[in-house]
């Protein structure tokens, strides 16, 4: 009996000692000290903050929703599915509301990214990174600071003053949930200062395996843009000059061949770039926007450039450069597609253009277009405006992008924008001489783009006409137009009650073409000045008692 009792007890003992059987470690998660154990590991963590440059609102190449769709440059042709929001926005009164504003402001996503960067600062303050080389650490901190400023800039761009959660010792949690919005001034001041701090510590260039990470030039460039939006003209000029200093050192330059800017990876004009890598990191730009004939039934047609966009590019008639006018071209029987502003050929595909070994057919019944815009259809796979995008579309005839997808890089900011910012800042200070010097530099520096100097104007409104055209021709499709219209205060007058247009091209039996400028909208667009500031999402107002909605949206 004793033996039996002993055996039994032994059996129990072997298994009862297994209370530590519940100490299970995860197999797919890394411990809390992994990140700060070395600079290489820290880089893995800091690189995740770059995700903000890859979101579908920032990195417009990545989603089908180009912010130019909110302006007069791009026409979306579907209604219920991809890109239909733009048409609903312009055709339905009161479409943008605090409950339905996700398409206009990625509020939750941006604050989530801000929280992630704040965790980094809190960890630093708690001493996690004390064992790392302080010089290397400073650079990573500066990168994180840039990303946080960029997120706040995106919010300020849409809303003006926002809730600043910027503590660097602890992350705002449930205790701090009720927090008021800061003023527009304070918000922009914060953003500009963050870029300034980041610029001080960021390197001028990275080694070849890290190209694409933000540099001193990136931070100064973004600060210039932020200062311009904030209305701080001197700070904008200061930042632009810092970028010019780096350009003088040879780090940045305007590309001679204009099309190289969009096709040569990591070229010298880029200040902030977003790279992709097929097949691991891709997007659908070609499936959405390549001309229809590239893969019939599968691509294109989601949106196309409007005639307003295409006709912003000047034409040289009999040696004289003038603004493009369809009436003149039709009556005088001039070929609309030769002798245009050289940037036109790299930006837009027109009827008859050479493309992937064929000629683009944007006429009625042509393989790439033209179909009239009806307002109700989806799956419209042909151009409703008589044009198709060329900028950012890949010109590789062998690529099957419907399966392998696209990997063109997105340009968040490039050196050309610095000239435009500088010019505008000078003009705002009434220094039109320098304003025009900068504009003309952009028109005459590249060897492939040689345009005559613009005659100097002496008042803001006339200058604005020239500035608008330069911005459309240089930065069209890069996500600037809508925000430009807003900050110049001319969004309502440009968009409300207007319609965009397309060019209906008919091929005649003798292979000549007849051109007719037609509406590409089925009704007048609706845009009120209320839309110039996006509403704070209802979710925030509901859960944050101190956050107040803009009076226009109450």
């Amino acid at each position, binding site marked *: 009996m004793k033996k039996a009792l002993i055996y039994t007890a032994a059996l129990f003992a072997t298994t009862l000692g297994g209370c530590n059987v519940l100490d299970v470690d995860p197999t797919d998660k890394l411990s809390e000290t992994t990140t700060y154990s070395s600079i290489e590991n820290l880089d*893995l963590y800091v690189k995740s903050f*770059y995700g903000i440059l890859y979101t579908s609102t920032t990195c417009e190449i990545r989603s089908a929703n180009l912010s130019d769709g909110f302006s007069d440059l791009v026409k979306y042709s579907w209604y219920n599915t991809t890109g239909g929001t733009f048409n609903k926005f312009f055709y339905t009164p*009161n479409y943008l509301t605090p409950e339905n504003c996700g398409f206009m402001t990625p509020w939750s996503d941006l604050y989530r990214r801000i929280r992630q960067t704040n965790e980094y600062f809190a960890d630093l303050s708690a001493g996690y990174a004390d064992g790392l080389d302080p010089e290397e650490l400073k650079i990573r901190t500066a990168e994180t600071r840039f990303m946080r400023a960029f997120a706040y800039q995106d919010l300020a761009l849409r809303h003006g003053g926002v809730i600043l959660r910027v503590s660097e010792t602890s992350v705002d949690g449930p205790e701090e*949930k009720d927090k008021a919005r800061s003023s527009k001034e304070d918000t922009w001041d914060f953003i500009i200062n963050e870029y300034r701090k980041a610029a001080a510590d960021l390197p001028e260039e990275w080694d070849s395996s890290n190209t694409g990470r933000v540099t001193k030039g990136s931070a100064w460039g973004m600060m210039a843009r932020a200062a311009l939006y904030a209305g701080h003209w001197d700070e904008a000029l200061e930042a632009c000059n810092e970028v010019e200093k780096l350009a003088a050192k040879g780090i940045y330059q305007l590309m001679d061949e204009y099309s190289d800017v969009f096709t040569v990876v990591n070229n010298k004009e880029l200040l902030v770039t977003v790279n*992709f890598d097929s097949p691991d*990191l891709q997007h659908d730009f070609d499936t959405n926007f390549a001309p229809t004939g590239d893969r019939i039934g599968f691509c294109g047609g989601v949106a196309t450039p409007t005639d307003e966009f295409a006709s912003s590019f000047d034409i040289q008639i009999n040696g004289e450069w003038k603004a493009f006018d369809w009436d003149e071209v039709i009556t005088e029987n001039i070929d609309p597609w030769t002798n245009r502003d050289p940037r036109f050929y790299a930006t837009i595909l027109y009827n008859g253009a050479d493309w992937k070994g064929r000629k683009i057919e944007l006429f009625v019944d042509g393989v790439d277009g033209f179909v009239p815009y009806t307002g109700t259809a989806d*799956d419209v796979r042909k151009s409703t405006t008589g044009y198709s995008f060329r900028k950012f579309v890949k010109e590789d005839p062998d690529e099957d992008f419907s399966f392998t997808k696209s990997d063109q890089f997105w340009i968040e900011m490039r050196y050309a924008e610095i000239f435009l910012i500088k010019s505008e800042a000078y003009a705002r200070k009434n220094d039109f001489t320098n304003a025009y010097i900068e504009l003309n530099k952009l028109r005459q520096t590249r060897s492939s783009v040689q345009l005559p100097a613009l005659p100097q104007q002496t008042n803001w409104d006339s200058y604005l006409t020239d500035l608008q055209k330069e911005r459309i021709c240089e930065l069209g499709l890069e996500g600037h137009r809508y925000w430009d219209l807003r900050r110049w205060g001319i969004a309502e007058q440009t968009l409300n009650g207007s319609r965009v247009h397309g060019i209906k091209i008919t091929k005649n039996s003798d292979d000549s073409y007849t051109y007719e400028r037609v509406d590409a909208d089925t009704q007048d667009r609706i845009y009120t000045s209320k839309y110039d500031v996006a509403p704070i999402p209802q979710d925030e107002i*509901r*859960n944050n008692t101190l956050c107040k909605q803009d009076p226009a949206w109450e």
Partner: protein
Amino acid sequence: MHQHNLSVTGGNKSVKYFISGGFMDQRGFYHDYKFQRGNFRSNIDAQATKDIKVTLNLSGRMQNSYRPGAHSYNNQDYGNVVGDLLYAAPFIPKEYNGLPTSAYRAGVNPDYARKHSGFQESKNFYLETSAKIEYSAPFLKGLKASFLVSWDHMNGDGTTFSYAYKVNHYNHGTKQYTEQYSLGLSEDGNMYVGHQRSQQVLLRPQIEYANKFGKHDVGALFLYEQTQYNYNSLSGSRQNFPIFDLPYLDFGNEWTEGASSSATRNATAGYVGRVNYGYDSKYLAEFSFRYDGSYNFAPGHRWGFFPSLSLGWVVSNEQFFKDALPKIDVFKIRASAGKLGRDNVDEFLYRKYYMWQEKNSAFGMDPTAANTLYNGNSYPNPDLTWEKTNTFNVGFDLTAWNGLLGAEFDVFYKYTYDILQGISASYPPSLGGHVPTTDNSGRFDAKEFELVLRHTNRINDFSYNISGNVSFTRNRILSKTESSNVLPWQSVIGTSMGAILGYEAIGLIQTEEQLANAPTPISGSRELRLGDILYRDLNGDGKITTDDATWISNSNIPEMMFALNFDANYKGFDLSLQFQGAALNDKMLCGTWNNGASDNTPLTKPFYGNYDNAPVYLVEGSWTPDNTDAEYPRLSVIGNPNNSIVSTFWKRNGAYLRLKNITLGYTIPKHIINKAGLQNLRVYVAGSNLFTITDFKYLDPESPNVVQGYYPQQKTMSFGVDISF
């Protein structure tokens, strides 16, 4: 489908055994979808010595499933066969210009895909073993100690080899056919091979005692159980196959992503004890407890103690009762109270950890996608612990008149607290998620009753029994974290679990006056017209916004369920019928999809997505100026959010009664089969889901709310033979 089973059982005083094997082969409504399973079992009990008994149970099964490469059966999956077939335009010919046609927006033809899109195959083998050694103490009668070890093993392979097929896709807008490859598949072929393995080891030492001293009946049990589980998988995929004939990875030209692997581990541990006492078969009491640990929680909060107590009084064994009511054979009153726990939460929420994110950015002169680390748990919460439920129950059992009447009745009250619930929704998005995602704060209760009635009788050679049962349960959320200024009609407190939020519909707009007085429709809607749905403006602000949503329906689970069984035997014939039904069953024709979006379904929005087929009732029953007494809103060429939101307009009563099963069998008389050496031979024919009585005419009342692609239940007829030797 066919299914066969053979079993052998026998033994003697020292060794007893049970061995069986079976095989099943089942096809889907497309014959190319198949499932095959073989299984075996071998249980052996051996009395090794006078005091020690040894048991060894082995069972295993091998199951193979095979499907065409194109499609899935999962509800709401992209490319689901049922969804594709149901919502495709019905007027398209099967073939056009030599190619199969596609009448559905996804550009697919499931019928053609069956043999022309590759395959998906999975083969899994499961082995379950357990061995037990039991020692009956000779020095104390009724005392036993045993030790059980169980080892379970799984080994599985999955292969998918898919490629696109060409279709002529019909575009409703242009009314033209376009030749294209089926969507979602690659014309160059794609192959995935995966291998999984898992094992679980369970240990359970146990000691128990049972004995009777005079009128005292005593028993006790104490055991400890722990399990450890681990799982590994390895997979690889390639694309770009020039030749489809041999489905092996080597024939693919490019690695899609190379190889990947993963592992999972978890463990459980717990103690169980029980003491029971009975006096004179009249008074019964039992006390038991569990003490469980979960690895999901931080040390210090891992263990939970869950006791329970039950008492019974067999009144029918009392002399006074036997004298007073002799016709009542059994009458027992019982009551119990207990506590149980649940650890239903994601693991490791108490720790800070980093996770690996694949390739979300690219760097380098020749850009290369980088893997990155991100903080996986923004707000570690070390205080998480077990959810607990207190259950109280009172009931009685009754049998009278020799089985002519039998009844069981129970009433339950369950109170669950410390529920692990998600709480981040009540924080503003500007906090970016730095909030505890889960805490133990929910509370809810449930009131239930169950009633079973039985009647058994025999008239000469005809014997039968009827039994019916009904159960009812109603639950209520007592506490749940929500935002502090939630609207009173949107508060979740007091609603039942899974209740559905939506708008209150008043009806269709019939008059110009109603049109003029109607509140502004929901954002994005077109202007209201006659025949649109009119909603109630709950907060009186003149417009319909998300603030006007309220609780409009219980969840898909009915509150009351009932069943009726009837068995009869006459000479060699046996008949059995089973009815089953539900009441207090709210069904919504639209609702929340698996991805969380609340939206219409093809059942409530005609030509959903501008491509799909539309149910006849939505089109023919729609409001028109000639048909104002219509059940459904007016049709419109453009999508109109006003008629497409989740509301009471689409709520229906799903009460039903269904003949679940009917079996008729005949046992061939013994004197005939004994000559063939058989002991028993019975043939039977059975049917299931034969008919349903319900007002809910749209589809199966047992289906979930959003039925996009729900594989319907089937009416089946089967026949079989039981033979024993």
